[in-house]
């Protein structure tokens, strides 16, 4: 961590806290396709790397992999298979819509869902880069989707961290559009991590977009970010609720709506979970009341295991 300290000035990066997680590495659950050799199991089996298995020769196979010794002894043609190892390319897509700026009914600015994502992605990108894997960043905004392709160049850390630090919640959620835009820009398969509150009016377009990634062989990790205050309505009698994505305000007596709201939010959580799992995502529901370091630790333990 010290080696990168000189270039890290993000307020969301706490190197002292991350020092405890240096031993953990972010790993993909599936075989991946990297540009360089690394410590992650690659999708293809090549002539180098660790021996994996034998296979009968079939016409068209690379003759360089033929085991000549077996051929000499037995007269049969077998190929020696070796497992290639490659590096990991993780692209983090962060939802920066207005609803991600929700910091609870008490409106503590540094308690917003986006802030939590900023801390989390900063720390995770730092650890991935430390493991000499590639990290990319895409930001889901209302109309645009700025994209920083995965890289492990020295300047990538600063670029990613700066981009994360500069994110501001605004506009409405349009995750499907962002995913489609990202899909058109990515060149190589890797790991896509989506951090969002998934408060889209319609989840189906988003799920369709994610299905494209999955079809192409991407590993998709979906992190559903929920603020604890979102689980229920505030205590009190009447409120004038202000929308965070440009919606019209609405006045309501919350006592009559409380139970119905809680039921509605539970249904939303359930539908997000069901949808994402059906697409084949690795789904995580996260309450922002849980410290990002704890979440990161648990996440990495699962991943490295």
């Amino acid at each position, binding site marked *: 961590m010290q080696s990168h300290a000189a270039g890290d000035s993000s307020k969301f990066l706490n190197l002292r806290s991350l020092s405890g997680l240096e031993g953990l590495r972010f790993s993909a659950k599936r075989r991946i396709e990297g540009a360089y050799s690394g410590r992650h199991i690659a999708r293809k089996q090549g002539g180098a790397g660790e021996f994996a298995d034998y296979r009968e020769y079939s016409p068209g196979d690379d003759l360089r992999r033929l085991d000549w010794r077996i051929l000499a002894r037995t007269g049969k043609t077998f190929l020696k298979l070796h497992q290639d190892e490659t590096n990991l390319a993780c692209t983090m897509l962060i939802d920066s819509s207005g609803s991600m700026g929700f910091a609870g009914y008490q409106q503590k600015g540094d308690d917003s869902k986006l802030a939590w994502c900023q801390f989390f992605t900063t720390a995770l990108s730092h650890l991935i880069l430390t493991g000499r894997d590639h990290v990319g960043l895409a930001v889901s905004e209302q109309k645009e989707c700025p994209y920083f392709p995965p890289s492990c160049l020295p300047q990538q850390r600063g670029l990613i961290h700066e981009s994360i630090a500069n994110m501001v919640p605004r506009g409405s959620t349009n995750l499907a559009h962002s995913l489609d835009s990202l899909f058109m820009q990515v060149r190589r398969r890797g790991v896509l991590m989506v951090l969002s509150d998934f408060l889209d009016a319609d989840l189906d377009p988003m799920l369709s977009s994610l299905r494209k990634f999955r079809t192409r062989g991407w590993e998709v990790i979906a992190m559903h970010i929920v603020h604890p205050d979102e689980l229920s309505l505030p205590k009190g009698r009447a409120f004038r*609720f202000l929308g965070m994505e440009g919606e019209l305000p609405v006045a309501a007596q919350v006592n009559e709506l409380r139970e119905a*709201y809680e039921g*509605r939010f539970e249904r939303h959580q359930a539908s997000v979970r069901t949808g994402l799992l059906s697409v084949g995502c690795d789904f995580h529901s996260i309450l922002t009341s849980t410290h990002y370091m704890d979440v990161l630790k648990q996440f990495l333990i699962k991943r490295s295991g």
Partner: protein
Amino acid sequence: MNPLNPWAIAIGVLAIGIPTALHFLTKPKPTAIPISTISFLYELIQQRRSRSKLRDILILLLRSIAIALIALAIARPRLSAPPIISPNPDTKTARVVIVDQSQSMAAGQGTSTPWERAQSASLRYLSYSDDMQAGVIFAGAKARSVYERLSNNFESLSEAIKKAKPKPENVNVADAIERAGQLLENVPEGATREVVIVSDFQRNDWGALSLEALPTDTKIVVEQASLNEKDNIAIVSAKPENRVTVKQPGTIQVEIANYTSQERNVKCRIILEKSTFSAQSLVPAQGTSVVNINASFDEPGWRTGYVTLDGNLDVQPLDDSFPIAFEVSSAPKVLIVTRQSIEKRDTSSYFLQQALSASLDQANINVVRSDKVLDTDWNDADLIVLSHPGQLPKSHTEKLAASIRRGRGLLLLMSELADGANHVSLAEMWGQSYQSPVQWTNESRGETRRGLFVAKVQTRQLPFQVFGDSIYGGLANVKLAGGLPTVATREGLKGAVAAELSDGSAWLTVTDCEAGKVAVMNCDLQKSNLVQEGIFVPIIAEISKMLLERDRVELSLCGLPIVRTMPIAASASEPFQVRAIDSLSPPIQDQGKFEFSTTKRSVVWTWPESIGPGLYEVLQNDAPVFSVATTVPASEADLTLLDEAGIKLQLEGSKQRIGIRNTKQSLDEQIDTWWTWLALACTGIMLLEVLTLLWFRT
């Protein structure tokens, strides 16, 4: 609608808006806060908006209605149809006011008695009007009309009502209604007939109210002067149980009625001139109890006094004292008339003489041959027995018939045809006052009457009442003979046949004959073995007691006519005088008539309208010859009244137009019960509001 508190309606109109105003004023001021899930709230609010609006509208409506109802209830609207009878009619009207003057109208403590309310209610209908003629009838034991025809002298009619007081009588409702009908018969053409009945509507008196005697176009208003307090304990009867005989133990029965809801321990006292007797009894709630007081008297003659309840404070004090008058008689005189030999010891008359001697203590039994009976013998005897007298001459039967009419007892042994002939002669003289259940015939159908046995006995009636069913055991071995066959008569009462023989003929008949009583035993004792059986003496004893009971005291009710037969000793030629015995008894105004009755051969006193309650004696030559105690009718002690529903039930089917009111209401006052219904409706509305809230919550 004429509200008692109109200001409440104005306040109510203003207050109706209060729930709506409160709804908007107390609406909480919303705090603006951002929320990420506002789309969810849109959905939820969209779903509930129409439901909430409906709930708010319903609740506000119900609250407004509740306030309006409370305001109306406080305003006390009084709604009613116009009265059937207007106090001041503007058309030709003939009006009769019937005022209940019975004793129950005086019940109550303090100044608020039904009578006072009845007076004021009656006067309201007698205010002067050019087009009206009116009459007033005081309804007591008989109807008393102030004037014989309708009058427009309202002052005089009102004055009569003001001066009148309740009388110790009950009400003859039919007489009052009939009298009203007579007054309304000849009214001017086109005049409206109206009758106002003002009474407490005591159940005992008014339970059989019928308006049939009134013209069908009569408008009727029933004014009920009800009594709040109905608890009353009263002496309803006091009289000797049996004939009171000198130096014989006698029993005076006092019947006490308890018309309260609790059992009461009642002390009563009898003061008879200088003697005082007392007793106490537990009287059940809504029941009666009979107190027996034993007394013995050394001298014959009339005894008068009062039975009083000690320490009884109730709404009807007059019935706590009960006058009593009875005669202490000398030992009974029995006359056995026979033509059989007096010396012989196997004759019917001998058997009867012996049996009567054993039955009646100290009785003076005189056996006289039928051809030697003197006129004085018939008059002096308390009980006359005809046993084989042969056919009596007309002079004897006349005296005998008169004696029985006056209250003597007759035991006739129907042994032979001559007895049948005597019976026919007597029945002819008694006429309609004697209805024999059977007729004795001489048609024996060729059969000899012997070996007969008693087949059927009326064990629940005198004289066999005391024996009960054991009489059959006592008569099991009795074989009767002689007598005459019988045929049932149309006019006689079947129940008057006390016992029947195995051949279907009557064995013993008991029939009243004016004040006296006649028993006919259909057998020949000489030929029967009855006299050898142990049951003979007890049967004769019961028959003789029954026949001597004619002296039982009859209650004389105030207001009703009293007809009493004076003793034989009273001379028809000397004047009689009736006077009150003590100061407690109201003084005599009209002592009635004393007339000699040829049929009874005695002077009969007729007092057409008795007064009282009190003790009165009849004097001749300053010597008392008769006493009478006039009492309040027992029915007046039960102050149970007919309620409005009861009165309506009584008048159901009447063709007249009828209105029922309470004297507590003034004429122009309208029914003031709506406020209770309004309050009830308000409670219902509030309950409905709670239910609405619950329903919308679920």
